[in-house]
């Protein structure tokens, strides 16, 4: 009898331990890009383990899906991709993983940008226009307002996959949103407006009413963060190698005068480089943004004939130490452009 009781006690203990383990089990999350890993970890906290597949120094369009990546995804609970035809290599990884939980259409597969307003949505597509993205410009994360939406999408999916930690994920999301809002508008202004201050300011900025609205409330002096830093860039014309900075420029009131690439994804032919030289001279453009993963040959050629400054930029979190968080990435971009133009 005693022996039986001992066995029952042991079985109960084992079951309880198993249940506790299941409760404590972290969600294993694979993201294509490092900024998605960063945001996922911010929202998921210690309830998730997020791993990014791409090297953040690498061109996100051209990542080699390797057996290591495929195997990492075999037991993932959630696979997050940027979508918009940027990280199309993700499809190969998802398919090769053989993991049914992360196939498109399952709760374990998330296209992070699903409800983010997209720019440059083409009405027609043709390969003769180069490496065009049929669903619009995918470099969406360089606008912090879009990352706010992406963080919300991630939070919702985490809640769905791990309903026991719903409140935890909601709180982490609220906290991260507050971090982004403070970085965007400055802590002082957010504090002055109270709990929903970030939401109000975000909408005002999206509608291009922010400054008038702040002036109306005599809050203009309290504006800080990236919006304040970027005031010096207001209206500045820049040239970029690829159409990477469309969202960034719109948010911080820069003007993208053009690209060194004549057609997206294809290195510029000599005649186009010369046309860019003429444009830069004509419009007095001082800065050329060249993503670190593109050859700087064309940018150097143009710079040597115009005096414009080439800024080699990193666009994903963790590419170098200076951009080891999303917040630092945006600060870095603003400061680099500001320094190059002054």
């Amino acid at each position, binding site marked *: 009898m005693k022996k039986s009781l001992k066995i029952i006690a042991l079985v109960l203990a084992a079951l309880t331990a198993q249940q506790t383990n299941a409760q404590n089990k972290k969600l294993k999350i694979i993201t294509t890009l490092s900024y998605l890993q960063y945001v996922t970890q911010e929202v998921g906290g210690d309830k998730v383990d997020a791993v990014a597949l791409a090297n953040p120094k690498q061109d996100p369009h051209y990542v080699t899906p390797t057996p290591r990546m495929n195997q990492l995804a075999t037991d993932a609970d959630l696979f997050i991709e940027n979508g918009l035809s940027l990280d199309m*290599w993700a499809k190969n990884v998802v398919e090769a993983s*053989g993991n*049914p939980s992360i196939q498109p259409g399952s709760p374990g597969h998330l296209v992070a940008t699903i409800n983010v307003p997209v720019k440059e949505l083409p009405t027609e597509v043709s390969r003769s226009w180069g490496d065009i993205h049929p669903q619009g410009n995918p470099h969406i994360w360089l606008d912090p307002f879009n990352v706010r939406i992406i963080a919300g999408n991630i939070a919702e999916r985490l809640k769905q996959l791990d309903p026991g930690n719903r409140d935890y994920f909601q709180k982490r999301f609220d906290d991260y949103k507050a971090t982004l809002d403070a970085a965007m508008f400055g802590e002082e202004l957010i504090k002055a407006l109270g709990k929903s201050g970030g939401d109000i300011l975000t909408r005002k900025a999206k509608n291009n009413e922010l400054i008038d609205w702040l002036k109306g409330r005599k809050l203009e002096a309290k504006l800080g963060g990236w919006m304040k830093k970027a005031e010096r860039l207001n209206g500045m014309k820049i040239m970029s190698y690829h159409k990477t900075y469309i969202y960034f420029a719109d948010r911080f009131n820069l003007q993208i005068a053009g690209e060194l690439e004549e057609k997206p994804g294809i290195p510029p032919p000599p005649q186009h480089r010369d046309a860019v030289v003429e444009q830069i001279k004509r419009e007095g453009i001082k800065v050329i943004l060249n993503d670190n993963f*593109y050859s700087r040959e064309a940018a150097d050629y143009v710079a040597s004939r115009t005096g414009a400054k080439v800024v080699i930029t990193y666009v994903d979190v963790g590419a170098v130490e200076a951009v080891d968080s999303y917040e630092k990435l945006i600060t870095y971009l603003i400061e680099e452009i500001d320094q190059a133009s002054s």
Partner: protein
Amino acid sequence: MSCRLLMIIILLCSIPPVAAGQDGEKPRDQQLDELRREVIQLRQEIAGLRTQLPLGDSTQSGELDQLEERLERRAEQLENKIDAVSRSVAPIAFNPKMVTAVNFAARSDNKEVIDPSPNQSVISNRPFLRTVEVELSSAVDPYASAFAVISLENQANKDFGIDAEEAYGLIKRLPVLESAPLGLKMKIGKYRASIGVDNKIHIHDLPWTTRPLIVSRYLGTDHGEFFESGFNPVGVDFDFYLPNPFPGTTFEMNADVVRAGDIAISNASLATSTLSPVAVRQPAYIGHLNLSKDWSNVHLLNIGASIYDEEGDYATRAYGVDLTYKWAPAEERESHSIVAGGEALMIDHINDALDRIHPYGWFGYLQYQTSYWLYLGARYDWIEESGDAGVVTRNIGLYASYYTTEFLRFRFGYEHRQSDIASQDNLNTIIFDLNLVFGSHPTEPYWVNR
């Protein structure tokens, strides 16, 4: 004033959800335009109300802010819906993805070259449309996807043959087994077999203008080695991951059960003459083990071992090893890369004279990418003839590939051959090769980066 705002809120909330095909009378674009106009109009009304607010009225101002917030949130929801509907998937997306790959090649030789296939046609000093491949792929249902490559192949300068180069279903899970162990995937149909690496690559993706000799001569070719070659049997392939033997590595296994007799080295070809048809025992088995490691997606090393086993009165076996190393820097990756590799195959089979022989062959290659556009490379082949291990052929090739994009590739090759077969000895060939890939092919890295 608050009443007017509440009216606006009611109006906004009363807007029905946007859905594709919701209103049979109005086209979707028209519905979206109307919603967009409505959102703009509501914003204008809010702005109008703001101007009517008396200066210094902080109570009403605060109230107005709150109401405006609710309106803005609703407007944002509507805008998101509009955006989502704009990007919604049209039913046409259920059609398979279709890609066409065209391979054109022209050769110039210093002596007459006769294709060894039954056609026995002269193939030297002339252009060929080597293949036109139409690739179709789509998800079948939540459990499987399907892939087919219908190939129009030049039969050594004698008309074209239509062939299902590949046609298979990829089963990822089943209702009875929702989650397969070890990432198991099952391929059923006809497919390019996992014997080494090169055999799995389609002709338009090759970095060279010709197939390595061990592939065309040992694994098979219907129309001569200058044309499409390789072993693509009918069977079942199980692809899964094994526990890692070394930290940071991936161990992947392919185990296949295929129809015996289709590989070039099989004695099945003798069955119709000297052997009885029962001499080939079905099925045959293929195994490929691949150990890989990548370093931050910059260096990638693959080491593989293959086996083909066909039992019967006159058993046929092939043992292979393959090695591929790729380097592509994270920065300026599109401009520079190095690929080096090689494969070796040893055969154990019965030849036409009914002798059991063990010929073997190998090839090694090196390719350097000098810029976005240009790749330079060399390949060396050494092979013993499958029918007579004492007869050796050596081939050295130099290649230059010029890519405008991954969809248009020009290749130039020079090959010098020395062989114990007199008709092939001291053969010099210059080959021009053009590959066009068009259709709904996604943007893919160049094959060296795959």
